[in-house]
């Protein structure tokens, strides 16, 4: 795969990892150094005792250090806020006077559209927060398992390098899990296409989803096809592609390896982070996959291995912005020859600007058809916003 898609074309892609070896080495080193006193720390209850034990000091000395290095020393005294008749009381103004961060942020916020675009991009692409333990264990222990975060994109035929391909799901996978566990949690709308024995559309409702009939799938990672052979009727996509590659030697593809998905774990793979791999199902439905992160498990992560892989679906509500201003959410579906594309989604303001004449919006006709879209559910309030408000 590296020959067809050279790594240089993906400058952000990492080196190749075999996570099992990498994290085994890392764990061993941690246990010999920072976690060498793990046995002692496991038996202690409070963090104060653990720190004192690590430093080899008495609790009295600990409390003295705690006072000397308290976070409270970094926090602003409320009385300091009321200085010079409130001139510098506003935190943003104080920050702008002192911090380059605030000045550059102000420059960015001065161009509102760019700031909004940036926030929108963050909302759309940031790695989500996966489900965590409600009450993480306080026991101080290095966990052996590792987690890998993968992103599965929507299927597309060709984007000519210009449009951004949206992703549909993010997964947190355990290193010890099989690829079939990952495959089973990938959701694609094409799987739900109903098929019947005959082509009569009236019997479509009694048909079955196509995923029940076409189970075959495969991952192509490195130069290896990992195919799903759980069902004896599944065909080997790797076979077909290998045959095609042999029939077209000028393409310089292969040789390929073939393995079974059900016997391969995430830890066995050789992966570059940030490099695109592919998942194929239903014959021709292709999804790009990237692995974006890998790390040792922590007590905050869900400890019940049966819950994995954890999946977070991308919020599709975010994708519908007005085709004219690209700032506001769409409210109207418009079908008009005069618009650049047919149909087009417009926001309320742009619709009124374009169509309103003498303060009246003309009714929808066959030539100029517009319809108000159903109300979307409101955004869930972020917990962090609540914390900020409380502060």
């Amino acid at each position, binding site marked *: 795969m590296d020959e067809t898609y*050279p790594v*240089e*074309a993906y400058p*952000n*892609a*990492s080196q190749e*990892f075999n*996570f099992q070896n*990498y994290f085994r080495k890392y764990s061993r*080193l941690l246990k010999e150094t920072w976690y060498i006193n793990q046995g002692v*720390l496991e038996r202690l209850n409070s*963090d104060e005792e653990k720190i004192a034990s*690590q*430093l080899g000091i008495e609790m009295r000395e600990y409390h003295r250090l705690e006072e000397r*290095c308290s*976070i409270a*020393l*970094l926090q*602003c005294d409320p009385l300091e806020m009321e200085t010079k008749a409130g001139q510098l009381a506003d*935190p*943003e103004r*104080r*920050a702008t006077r*002192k*911090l*380059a*961060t*605030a000045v550059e942020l102000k*420059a960015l916020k001065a161009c509102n559209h760019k700031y909004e675009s940036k*926030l929108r991009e963050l909302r759309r692409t*940031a*790695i989500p*927060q996966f489900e965590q333990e409600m009450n993480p264990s306080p026991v101080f222990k290095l966990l052996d398992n590792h987690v890998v975060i993968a*992103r599965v994109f929507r299927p597309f035929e060709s984007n*000519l*390098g*210009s*449009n951004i*391909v949206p992703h549909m799901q993010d997964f947190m996978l355990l290193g010890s899990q099989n690829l079939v566990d990952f495959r089973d949690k990938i959701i694609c709308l094409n799987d739900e296409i109903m098929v019947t024995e005959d082509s009569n559309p009236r019997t479509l409702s009694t048909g079955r989803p196509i995923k029940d009939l076409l189970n075959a799938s495969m991952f192509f990672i490195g130069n290896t096809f990992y195919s799903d052979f759980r069902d004896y009727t599944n065909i080997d996509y790797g076979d077909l592609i290998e045959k095609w590659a042999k029939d077209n030697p000028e393409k310089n593809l292969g040789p390929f390896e073939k393995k079974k998905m059900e016997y391969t774990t995430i830890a066995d793979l050789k992966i570059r*982070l*940030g490099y*695109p791999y592919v998942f194929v199902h239903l014959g021709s439905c292709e999804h790009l996959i990237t692995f*974006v*992160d890998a*790390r*040792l498990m*922590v007590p905050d992560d869900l400890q019940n291995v049966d819950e994995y892989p954890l999946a977070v679906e991308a919020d599709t509500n975010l*994708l519908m912005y007005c*085709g004219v201003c*690209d700032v506001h959410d769409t409210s109207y579906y418009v079908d008009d*020859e*005069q*618009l*650049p*594309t047919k149909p087009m989604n417009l926001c309320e303001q742009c619709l009124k600007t374009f169509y309103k004449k003498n303060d009246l919006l003309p009714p929808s006709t066959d030539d100029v058809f517009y319809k108000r879209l159903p109300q979307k559910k409101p955004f869930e309030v*972020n917990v*962090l*916003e609540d*914390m*900020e408000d409380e502060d």
Partner: protein
Amino acid sequence: MLDDAIVAIGSANDCDILVEKFSQSESLSFADFARVWKASHFELIFCGRSSEELPLLASELLAIAKAIILNVNKEFASRVGGLYLMYGLYFTQKAKSKIRLTLSEFKEFMKFTCELKEQNNMDAEFIFQKLFIAKAFLFCACSTPNKYIQMNKKCQSEEDVGNAMDENECRLIGCEGLSSNSLRNVDLLHSKYEELKPQIAGFVTTSSSAAPSKNFPSEIQAILDAFKSDIAKIKNNGTKQGKPTSVAEEVNQGVIRRRIVNSSFQSQSRSRRMPVDVTSMDSARKSSKSKRDH
């Protein structure tokens, strides 16, 4: 590190200044650091950000602090300042971001903690243990996973935060004092001055090193012209200033079309959700305008 920052614009500068001020203090105690932190109003670093940005901002700031600690070219005092900065950022952040360490970074960090023990800096050792016992560290394969989520973006010129400053630079170049008319006037005045100078009694012919060059107005004009053409090139090509493009970048029809559209609509950023056909849009607008006029 600076190139990887998505949200933390300007922060590396602030952190460097804070740590340099701390390194000039007499002792390496946390109390000295706290004094410098408060004098710099560093508690305001999370100010003015929307809640979507806060986790990523905290993550990037912690990465900047980590880079200061692991920078062996810096003085030991600055690296200790980096550790204090990391502690301050971790416990004052409004999110739950952690400090990421790859295997190679962990090995360097270990050397640093060993040096702390040798120097017998109890404050720094205490702060490190506080972070460690609070499980602030994540042992991972990559330092900045967020750079991988932008794999689709080959041309980042419109969305790039750095371009906000390009506009400010353009405003500076375009300001009245540096316009070509003003520079022409300066040139006239300067040449008149050069003519009158030798007529003064006791005039010394050899000019001092502090005097400006005789052709300084035309030199300024040449520099401004070069600057303007560089900025125009950046906006047309969609590349970051000073950064070479990837040699293996695929130049396909979609990308060429995108460049043409970008050069036509330089002052406005466009959405990439739908491909823009400029000619049909123009003709649609013209025909709608003519229809409405009738």
